[in-house]
């Protein structure tokens, strides 16, 4: 990871957070109260964490691009309206982390 890709990741994370915040405020009109999982956010989170942690598995695109896309998606869910997106983030992180563990430690 050089400094240019580091900046790319940061910008990607910030943009993802802004997009997630704006879209979630449009989608959810009330503050977070019910512990309900948003399926779309869950899918985005799982894909995001997978791309961020397991970019070497995707050999057809450079890793800095897949990590940047992954971080954008991760930030979209993580940056949702306060309260929303936390369960989706944890599930996505766990699944991405398990694949990372299998890839790096187990195999």
């Amino acid at each position, binding site marked *: 990871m050089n*400094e240019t890709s580091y*900046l790319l990741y940061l910008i990607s994370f910030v943009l993802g957070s*802004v997009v997630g915040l704006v879209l979630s405020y449009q989608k959810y009109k009330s503050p977070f109260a019910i512990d309900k999982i948003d399926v779309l956010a869950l899918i985005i989170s799982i894909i995001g964490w997978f791309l961020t942690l397991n970019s070497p598995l995707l050999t057809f695109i450079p890793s800095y691009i897949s990590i940047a896309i992954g971080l954008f998606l991760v930030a979209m869910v993580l*940056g949702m*309206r*306060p309260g929303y997106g936390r369960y989706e983030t944890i599930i996505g992180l766990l699944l991405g982390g398990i694949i990372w563990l299998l890839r790096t430690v187990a195999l």
Partner: protein
Amino acid sequence: MNLMLNILLNVTIAFLLGSLLFGLQRKVMARIQMRPGPPIIQHLLHTLKFYIKESTFPKTAAMPFYIAIASILCVIWVSAVIVGPVAQGSLLLIFAIYALHKIVEHNAGSSSGSPYGKLSCVRAVFSAAAEVPLFAVLIIIYLKTGTMVLSDITAYQAQNGALLFTIPLAALMFFVLILSKAPYSPFAITKGKDIISGYETEHFGLLRGYLMISESIAWYMLLWIFLTVFLGPLSLLGYLVGMVIISVIVAFINATTPMLNPNHSIMVQVTLVFIGIVGSIILLML
């Protein structure tokens, strides 16, 4: 890489990451206090927001000093980025920049004419009496490594192991300094809520934006110095992980401790300075 491009790259990284770490801190503090908390990008959004707000100047402000001081604060922390990540220069220059930061903090408070700013200005001088000695941790580093140059200190650690384990009391002193600069910290007396926003109270719009950018860069730089000086050569990912961990630890401390009375804050810091310097010298002699 071109020098100017390198500076621009590092300053942008410092600003963005510093802002995100502040946001993370607020999030962690909120979760400890059983609140959902703001989004992690909240501090960054606040900073950008001030650039589209109207800038007004109080009648009591000492012009043009009042305007210049916000820009100076920004310039000195950009200089810190140049001395640190870009040039891997001398720690003495960083010490000078930190001392200058305390002077600017003092002047930002006094230049607005606000009574809250003035109280903060007095507290900035008061806190400098403890924070500048905390930065004197550099003496211990020099005694141990025989150099003040960041690249040499990193090389020393690559050969002899991280300084965190050989001079832990010095690392503790520097951590207390980092803690002192965090918002809502027990030692953040210059921005205590009893004096509204301290020296920033009468800085609006663009000027507040400059102050917030400086704070973000300052936070990034203090963490960067800590990690470089005490944990040796790290990759960019190592820096990122280290900064996140320190910010979370600081958030835990801030969320669970009240802000100290200025006298108590200084006394606690001075006591830690004494323990840190004397203890480290004894440890070095053993």
